[in-house]
């Protein structure tokens, strides 16, 4: 008799429906709120069109600035994180396996430190950073790279475990590949799933980050949304919805592009 390990189709459907509803209720509530015409009932797109109305450009300037800053922060953070983490993890895996545990400890450490404590430590560092790079919002990426390290490390590590990179690297070396080629043409293509997962989770963390930006007096999406919510709660909800939609879209695109290539040679 075959032992059934996977849940049945019905169970999966029920679980997915329940989880879907739990996630959907607040999103639908936000959407409903953003479409309200006034306190007496009725719905229209007034609050949505108002945000993009050139007449209100001055009112929402900070909000758009926050969105732009967050997008720049997301890109810079992902790039820095990948440049820092991928070669380090590959090097440790291939050449210095005894450093695997210390590296894991270092990468997971930020998750145990509350953001407020992190800011206390980062504040003097940022006074030095500001001297070299100015007080531009993108400099927050240095802190964000630390913040996303635990999640990114786990995503890449899971991929590293599933692929026998040591044998692949040795096979490539015996075929005449130098170390640069081994990493670029053999290791990285096989870590694409892990790297994309790390990138997605990093973007999500950066788009949702408030504490560090707020305490270091930088404007990002979350600080701007909080600021605008005091005067225009509809705009805050609309931007929160747009950020969510952007996140979903990103997940969808990255999910599709992370599928292994099946192109003919």
């Amino acid at each position: 008799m075959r032992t059934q390990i996977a849940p049945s189709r019905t169970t999966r459907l029920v679980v997915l429906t329940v989880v879907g509803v739990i996630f959907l209720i607040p999103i639908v509530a936000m959407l409903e709120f953003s479409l309200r015409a006034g306190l007496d009932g009725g719905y229209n797109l007034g609050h949505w069109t108002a945000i993009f109305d050139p007449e209100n450009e001055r009112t929402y300037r900070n909000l758009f600035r926050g969105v732009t800053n967050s997008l720049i922060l997301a890109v810079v953070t992902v790039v820095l994180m990948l440049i820092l983490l991928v070669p380090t993890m590959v090097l440790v895996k291939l050449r210095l396996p005894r450093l695997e545990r210390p590296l894991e400890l270092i990468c997971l450490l930020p998750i145990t430190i509350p953001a407020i404590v992190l800011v206390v430590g980062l504040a003097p560092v940022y006074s030095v950073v500001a001297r070299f790079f100015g007080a531009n919002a993108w400099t927050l990426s240095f802190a964000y790279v630390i913040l996303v390290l635990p999640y990114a490390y786990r995503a890449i590590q899971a991929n590293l475990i599933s692929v026998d990179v040591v044998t692949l690297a040795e096979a490539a070396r015996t075929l005449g590949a130098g170390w640069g080629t081994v990493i670029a043409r053999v290791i990285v293509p096989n870590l694409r799933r892990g790297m994309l997962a790390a990138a997605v989770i990093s973007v999500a963390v950066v788009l949702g980050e408030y504490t560090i930006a707020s305490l270091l007096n930088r404007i990002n999406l979350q600080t701007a949304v909080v600021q605008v919510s005091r005067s225009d709660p509809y705009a805050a909800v609309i931007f929160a919805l747009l950020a969510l939609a952007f996140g979903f879209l990103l997940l969808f695109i990255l999910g599709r592009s992370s599928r292994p290539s099946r192109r003919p040679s």
Partner: protein
Amino acid sequence: MTATPATPTTPPSLDPVGGTRVELRGVVKEFPGLRALDGVDLVLDPGELVVLLGPSGCGKTTALRCLAGLEEVTAGSIHIADEDVSGVPTNRRDLGMVFQQYSLFPHLTVMENVEFGLRMRKVPAEDRRRRSQESLDLVGLGEHGKRYAHQLSGGQQQRVALARALVTRPRVLLLDEPLSALDAKVRAGLRDEIRRIQTELGITTLFVTHDQEEALAVADRVAVMNEGRIEQIGTPEELYSTPVSPFVAGFVGLTNRLPGTLSRGMVSVLGATVSVLNHNVPDGEVTAFVRPEDVILGPEGESASVLTSSFLGSLRRTHVQLDLPDHPIVVVQHEVSDVRRPGEKVRLTLRDHAVVVEKR
């Protein structure tokens, strides 16, 4: 019933590579707290297939990895075509290697995998494609170029790995237990295929295995390793019939360990007196290593009782228990027609064939 051939009936061929002389001179490899290789000396003549045989942890894979440049030697030197390559990185040693683990690049097709080495050597695309196709044809997978590794069986993956290793016409082919992950039938087929291709191309080959049957089947010569040293190197026949040590006698082929008495280079076992192959054991009580086919079931010798008798096609193998204090069990190989029943009383003696002994 006949087995389906694993290879095409008229396999296509690559141009012969021509062999290269390979030499390991006093190679020592130390890991923290472990001396994996303890002065290994080994010469591979051009076009020769040498098997490194030994139990797990004896250093055979380390020796191969040192030759490949995947491990740095602690002392000694490695020479390929009389050139000292000890300090040359792996990617410049011009080797082909097949690994124990499946090592095809999962993101590339079979054809792209085979082309990889040629790409590293900047071979023009057209030539690259033609040579890769030839190499795939050689291993009988010419039709599988567009597939990915996960779409192939284990045996097919190792054949692609072999094609990939051979396509660059390397000076030396290194095989690190390439068949150990495969099932018995596929293993036997691929073993013969490796030998055919190696002979056809005349490529100097070092093959590592712990499977003595595999070693004896494919090798020109076998080097038996133990605790980081080569105990004996010779043809499969030499190793089997004239082992130089108890370790080799015990590791290669079936062996009976029988009590005997050594005196002036002759050992008395089962009522017979035969000469010994190793002369470094002092006279006295010894254990003699005797092949099953060197034990005779006859009218003379030590008395014993038959335990079991198995029909093995071309021969019969019978287990008998000696009527001695420790009741040692002896394996005897004899004619199929000589049928013995469990419980039957027999007598055992030895053929006049030199044996290895060790102090008891």
